[in-house]
């Protein structure tokens, strides 16, 4: 039996596996609980064992789940095989099956009125591949950490947090509705807050954690509003849609309503169906230009609201995935332990935004505006980060900015509708960036926690394994054939170049050429990083004379990741045939069931022309040259040029540019001045003036004061002369009687 068939028979059938999907999350959660509560009694070794085995178990389950997503059984005759991995889409018509996927609904989380959220988990090829990345890379990094944190007595907290993070990330990926996804979304934010501030005794580190969390919260703010808009959209859709719309969506009113009752309005499948229903056709009533009739959004068009919601989601994704304008937290997040940076701030959490948009691709393609914004934001972020990375001397900072830059590239892909490539780049990036970070960690570990690349150098002889793997990863990220990075990045650029957004054709070319610049500069700063760290002579100011190679727990993950970042390239090879028969990249073919709805909408709504051609050899060569040029420039500068003219002062403008870049173009300072200071100032003023002065002193104490004054004024009436009082009573009596008399008269 050949490879394909091997993959087609899963050891555990989908229907058997589905109910235990929850275990994938539960295992790390349990590990986190045990490590966190009993960690100190258990001791180091046990904690290591528990934490690692928890993630390992999750990994095994993920493999099974991933495998089960393409489980088939021998079909009727002629060797054709029948797919068993599918479930009925509750939002579709009777015969509407979600293929290559398994799902399980653990029932209600909370339900109020006609709103409901379920603990619904789903694995399809998209989330499956991410499961593998998270648990796989996660496991490697746990393993790595066992050695990296061997001298830290906060190990139990560390592993508890790490497990917690993995659990949250898995929730994010497995969730089949927006709210549950949001749980993971915030959960990873929380975990990263804890891990960045892991060495809390250093105020700067604690502050970095807080900065990360609050910045993420700004994104979550947008995310929440977008979610609520989605709810409103769904209700408006169900109110206004007619049979035609439902037919367009491949559903019908009763089924859709019933599914809403049972699953809640925020499940991805339901949103997909709504997106399909919003496509324009002659028979239907609702399309993107239809105004909403009732409710808070009365008068706005569906398309408009959709765009607004997607832009808000973009802000949310920008917070999580460190894009403009919220990328500032990521570089500071490097305050955390290096394995954390590798896992959270390179491989998994920061890619959540890309995952979110791929998950909601069907909605995204409805709004060219939103797509263009996503792409442009991605491109600009990527460029900015690359430029900043030029001038950073802290090895982790460089990697951080390169992460931001790579994420930008993924956003470019997502924005231009080449989702599969973006996801592929996500995967490959997870491999080589994790490898780079771990390598950096290994370097620091071997050099007394030295992070300044100026003070390193010449490590290739002392840390062979680290050097080799680092080199591979560097080549991968710079995009050198035949490594994975090259193909994924090139796939994105190719797609960006050939996809066209309705009415916004200029975007594709603009983003494409920006992308080339980015590719070149990536090559430049990565080569620089590599050269200064490993090549050349050992620096004079090095902390330790001779770096020592790290233990196997650290080198093994490096090797595995390096290998992976090589072989992952296979995914991008056009080995498959698409339904229409032309060659198709493996990964594109692999993800096609996930993005089928997106494709339908893109072709139906005509909002974006998707190009399915595969790059020609010329494109490859061109991209390769770009990468080489960048790398070559760096090589020339740092091997020949600077060493040659060492000691001579650099020209003023160069120093000015360098300083600006080094100070990250003063973006943090800018935010400090336009956001943080004003808020603090305002709160202070409000407290002193409004609260303390106006309300409390003037209003409250003022009332008391007036009362007191009136009282002491009235004291003078109090003569103490009984007869005077009696006289008053008499007058009152007279008045009363007179009044009564008048009343009687009428």
């Amino acid at each position, binding site marked *: 039996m050949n490879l394909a068939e091997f993959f087609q028979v899963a050891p555990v059938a989908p229907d058997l596996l589905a109910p235990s999907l929850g275990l994938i999350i539960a295992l790390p959660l349990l590990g986190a609980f045990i490590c966190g509560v009993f960690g100190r009694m258990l001791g180091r070794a046990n904690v290591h064992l528990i934490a690692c085995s928890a993630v390992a178990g999750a990994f095994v389950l993920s493999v099974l789940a991933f495998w089960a997503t393409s489980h088939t059984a021998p079909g009727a005759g002629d060797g054709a095989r029948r797919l068993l991995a599918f479930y009925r889409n509750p939002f579709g018509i009777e015969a509407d099956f979600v293929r290559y996927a398994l799902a399980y609904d653990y029932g209600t989380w909370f339900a109020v009125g006609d709103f409901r959220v379920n603990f619904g988990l789903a694995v399809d090829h998209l989330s499956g591949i991410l499961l593998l990345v998270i648990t796989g890379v996660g496991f490697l990094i746990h393993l790595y950490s066992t050695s990296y944190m061997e001298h830290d007595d906060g190990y139990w907290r560390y592993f508890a947090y790490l497990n917690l993070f993995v659990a949250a990330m898995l929730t994010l990926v497995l969730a089949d509705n927006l709210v549950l996804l949001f749980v993971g979304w915030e959960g990873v934010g929380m975990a990263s807050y804890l891990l960045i501030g892991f060495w809390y005794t250093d105020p700067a580190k604690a502050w970095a954690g807080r900065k990360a969390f609050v910045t993420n919260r700004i994104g979550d703010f947008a995310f929440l509003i977008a979610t609520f808009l989605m709810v409103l959209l769904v209700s408006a859709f169900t109110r206004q849609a007619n049979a035609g719309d439902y037919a367009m969506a491949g559903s019908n009113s009763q089924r859709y309503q019933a599914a809403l009752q049972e699953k809640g309005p925020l499940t991805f499948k339901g949103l997909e169906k709504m997106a399909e229903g919003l496509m324009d056709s002659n028979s239907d009533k609702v399309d993107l230009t239809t105004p909403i009739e009732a409710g808070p959004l009365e008068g706005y068009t569906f398309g408009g609201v959709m765009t607004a919601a997607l832009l808000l989601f973009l802000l949310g994704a920008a917070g999580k995935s460190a894009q403009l304008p919220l990328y500032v937290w990521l570089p500071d997040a490097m305050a955390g332990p290096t394995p954390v940076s590798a896992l959270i701030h390179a491989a998994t959490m920061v890619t959540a935004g890309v995952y979110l948009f791929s998950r909601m691709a069907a909605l995204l393609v409805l709004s060219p505006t939103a797509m263009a914004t996503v792409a442009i934001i991605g491109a600009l972020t990527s460029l900015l980060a690359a430029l900043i990375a030029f001038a950073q001397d802290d090895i982790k900072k460089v990697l951080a900015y390169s992460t931001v830059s790579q994420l930008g590239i993924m956003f470019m892909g997502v924005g231009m509708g080449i989702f599969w490539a973006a996801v592929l780049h996500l995967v490959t990036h997870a491999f080589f960036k994790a490898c780079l970070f771990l390598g950096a960690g290994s370097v620091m570990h071997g050099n007394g926690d030295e992070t300044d690349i100026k003070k390193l150098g010449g490590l290739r002889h002392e840390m062979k394994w680290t050097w080799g793997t680092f080199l591979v990863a560097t080549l991968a990220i710079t995009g050198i054939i035949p490594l994975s990075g090259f193909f994924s990045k090139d796939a994105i650029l190719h797609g960006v170049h050939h996809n066209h957004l309705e009415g916004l054709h200029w975007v594709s070319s603009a983003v494409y050429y920006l992308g080339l610049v980015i590719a070149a500069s990536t090559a430049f700063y990565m080569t620089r990083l590599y050269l200064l760290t490993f090549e050349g002579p050992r620096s004079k100011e090095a902390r330790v004379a001779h770096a020592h190679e790290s233990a196997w727990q650290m080198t093994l993950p490096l090797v595995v990741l390096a290998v992976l970042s090589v072989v992952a390239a296979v995914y991008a090879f056009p080995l498959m045939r698409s339904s229409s028969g032309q060659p198709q990249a493996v990964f594109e073919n692999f993800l096609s069931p996930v993005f089928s709805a997106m494709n339908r909408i893109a072709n139906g709504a005509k909002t974006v022309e998707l190009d399915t051609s595969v790059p020609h050899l010329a494109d490859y060569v061109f991209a390769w040259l770009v990468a080489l040029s960048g790398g070559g420039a760096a090589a020339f500068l740092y091997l020949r040029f600077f060493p040659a003219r060492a000691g001579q002062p650099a020209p003023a403008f160069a120093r000015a540019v360098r300083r600006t870049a080094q100070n990250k173009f003063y973006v943090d300072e800018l935010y400090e001045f336009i956001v943080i200071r004003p808020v603090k100032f305002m709160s202070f003023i409000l407290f002193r003036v409004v609260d303390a002065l106006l309300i409390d002193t003037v209003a409250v104490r003022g009332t008391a004061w007036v009362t007191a004054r009136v009282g002491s004024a009235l004291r003078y009436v*109090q*003569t*103490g*002369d*009984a*007869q005077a*009082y*009696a*006289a008053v009573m*008499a007058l009152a009596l007279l008045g009363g009687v007179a009044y009564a008399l008048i009343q009687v008269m009428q």
Partner: protein
Amino acid sequence: MVPITYYLLLAAALFCMGMFGVLVRRNALVVFMCVELMLNAANLTFLAFARMRGDSIGHVSAFFVIAVAAAEAAIGLAIVIAVFRSRGSVLVEDIRTMKH
């Protein structure tokens, strides 16, 4: 027979005179006497209405009023004595302890 109104008018006059006395006289004892006058006016009214309605509730009320008046006089006069002991005067304007 005499119309009730006359009795009532008489009672009103008596009451007002009593009140006048209470309000203008300085001697606490006389003030007390005027209070008695007012009480009697009230009694008179009771009786007049009793006569008109022909039931004896009015009489009973008057009876109680008298009893209460007795008690009131006893206590009042006792107070007057006490005050006189402490201040040597029974003039109301000399008794202004209510001020403080």
